[in-house]
């Protein structure tokens, strides 16, 4: 068994892991290792061949593989070591990381600090519990994306897409370009969770209808899928009897949400937030286990990779503080942190704990569409900070910068609330 030590172990070589490792390196931490389970770095970006990445970080429009390569080049330049084909199987609270790969067999690494950057995975048919048989031809949108863009297979010819997440919309266009007939997109909500530009450029451009408040209630077929029954839903998202309609198809794509992948975090006893599905963290992205940090989609699902890179940079800064003993109030159980909760109109907030030592930025999502108002950070009756928004929508993560001065009065154990307040 290969046994080694490292100041920082980064789990995952996707956009979050790469940017976090680089952030550590920029702060003169040299003993870093990135563990990646795939045979190349870059994570899911390698199959996202469409453009629209990098507008915030690089100020230009890149495709997924190009965005990934910019970071891979910097990692190579910095000579940050990485192990490919390496699957982390266990981690404990002492930050001992256990992994396996075909070259070394079992690998044990004693880490000074760990950055969790495992990303997320797609919700599957099993999670939705759609009745019917178990025929071939039912894919998650990301699986179909991999088949088409990496493996070179065409998933099918007559396609129905359930869910209007961005990957589903992108695949609607990709399939159309390759000659498939995309019949419709069904969305259970009254609005799309995808970006406006994707609705325009992937559906409207090709006359693909999107049916709101509509879902798939049955899958037909025994060997290969032969069709689906769709139905309208009421305000409680229950199918309305009598509205069922049969739609023939040989392929059903599911684009129904992403779940942070936190099995490893749980092995290390990292406390999770049921609202995000990711760890509870402080403003430096440190989890409830001292020395274990998290960033990117493992923490909460982002819409834009640029924001993942930014969050990873924060985690790198946190690791630097931790390794240099600057983090006196180490861990969420420490006595110096106030809790932040999502209040009226807000679905979740990251970070969930703050010390208020420095300027911070809150990342949040709303629980519905709201127009013209402010998002406020309040401590009891006192409004500490507020930011004006013309509109907030659940499909778009928003950001809220707060100056240190505004946080000077917070006390350990305070319960702060982020809430929406409509104006007029």
């Amino acid at each position, binding site marked *: 068994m290969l046994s080694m030590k490292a100041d920082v172990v980064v789990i995952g070589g996707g956009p979050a892991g790469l940017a976090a490792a680089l952030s550590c390196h920029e702060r003169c931490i040299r003993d870093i290792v990135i563990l990646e389970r795939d045979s190349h770095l870059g994570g899911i970006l390698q199959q996202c*061949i469409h453009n629209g990445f990098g507008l915030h970080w690089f100020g230009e429009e*890149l*495709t997924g593989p190009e965005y990934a390569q910019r970071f891979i080049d910097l990692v190579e330049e910095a000579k940050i070591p990485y192990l490919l084909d390496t699957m982390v199987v266990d981690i404990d609270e002492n930050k001992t990381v256990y992994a396996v790969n075909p070259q070394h067999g079992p690998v044990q690494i004693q880490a000074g600090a760990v950055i969790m950057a495992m990303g997320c995975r797609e919700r599957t048919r099993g999670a939705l519990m759609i009745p019917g048989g178990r025929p071939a031809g039912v894919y998650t949108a990301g699986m179909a994306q991999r088949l088409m863009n*990496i493996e070179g297979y065409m998933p099918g010819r007559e396609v129905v897409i359930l869910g209007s997440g961005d990957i589903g919309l992108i695949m609607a266009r990709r399939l159309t370009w390759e000659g498939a007939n995309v019949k419709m997109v069904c969305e259970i909500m009254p609005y799309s969770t995808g970006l406006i530009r994707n609705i325009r450029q992937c559906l409207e*451009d090709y006359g693909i209808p999107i049916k709101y408040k509509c879902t798939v209630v049955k899958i037909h077929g025994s060997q290969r899928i032969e069709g689906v029954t769709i139905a309208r839903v009421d305000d409680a998202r229950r199918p309305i009897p009598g509205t069922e309609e049969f739609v023939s198809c040989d392929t059903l794509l599911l684009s129904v949400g992403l779940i942070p992948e936190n099995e490893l975090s749980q092995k290390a006893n990292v406390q999770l937030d049921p609202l995000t599905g990711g760890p509870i963290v402080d403003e430096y992205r440190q989890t409830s286990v001292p020395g274990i940090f998290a960033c990117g989609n493992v923490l909460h699902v982002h819409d834009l990779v640029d924001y993942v890179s930014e969050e990873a940079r924060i985690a790198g800064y946190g690791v630097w503080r931790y390794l240099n003993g600057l983090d006196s109030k180490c861990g969420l159980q420490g006595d110096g942190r106030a809790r932040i909760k999502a209040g009226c109109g807000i679905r979740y907030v990251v970070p969930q704990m703050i010390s208020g030592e420095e300027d911070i930025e809150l990342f949040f999502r709303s629980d519905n569409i709201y127009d013209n108002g402010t998002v406020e950070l309040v401590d009891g009756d006192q409004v500490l900070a507020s930011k004006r928004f013309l509109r907030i929508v659940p499909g778009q993560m928003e950001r809220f910068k707060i100056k240190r001065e505004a946080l000077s009065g917070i006390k350990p154990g305070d319960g702060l609330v982020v809430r929406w307040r409509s104006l007029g």
Partner: protein
Amino acid sequence: MELICVLCPRGCRMQVKAGKDGGWEVEGNGCSRGKGYAIQEMTCPMRTLTTSIWVEGGIHKLVSAKTDRSIPRDRIMEALKQTKGLKIKAPVNIGDVLVENIAGTGANLVATRKVDKAQHTYLA
């Protein structure tokens, strides 16, 4: 007709109709860029094409590619037709031109991923 502007997250709902002197009347745009976008969408919508091309002798079976500038939307299918049956020899680097002046649009189809030569080739 109604158009939602995609240039920024604000997503202005714009009404566009043909003007008297052959121009376009745009309403509901929050800024001048929105007006330009609306007129472009009505006259000649432009899109970047992204696809993947087969690679021979590479560590990956396919290389991702894009047009190096946006092309008229109604030329996309023709551009795709031109990539059918195309096979590129590894190695390929980001920015390598795979198809010059694709579908006569003036844009080149360029690689967006690096594909090194393989030790063993894939058996097709």
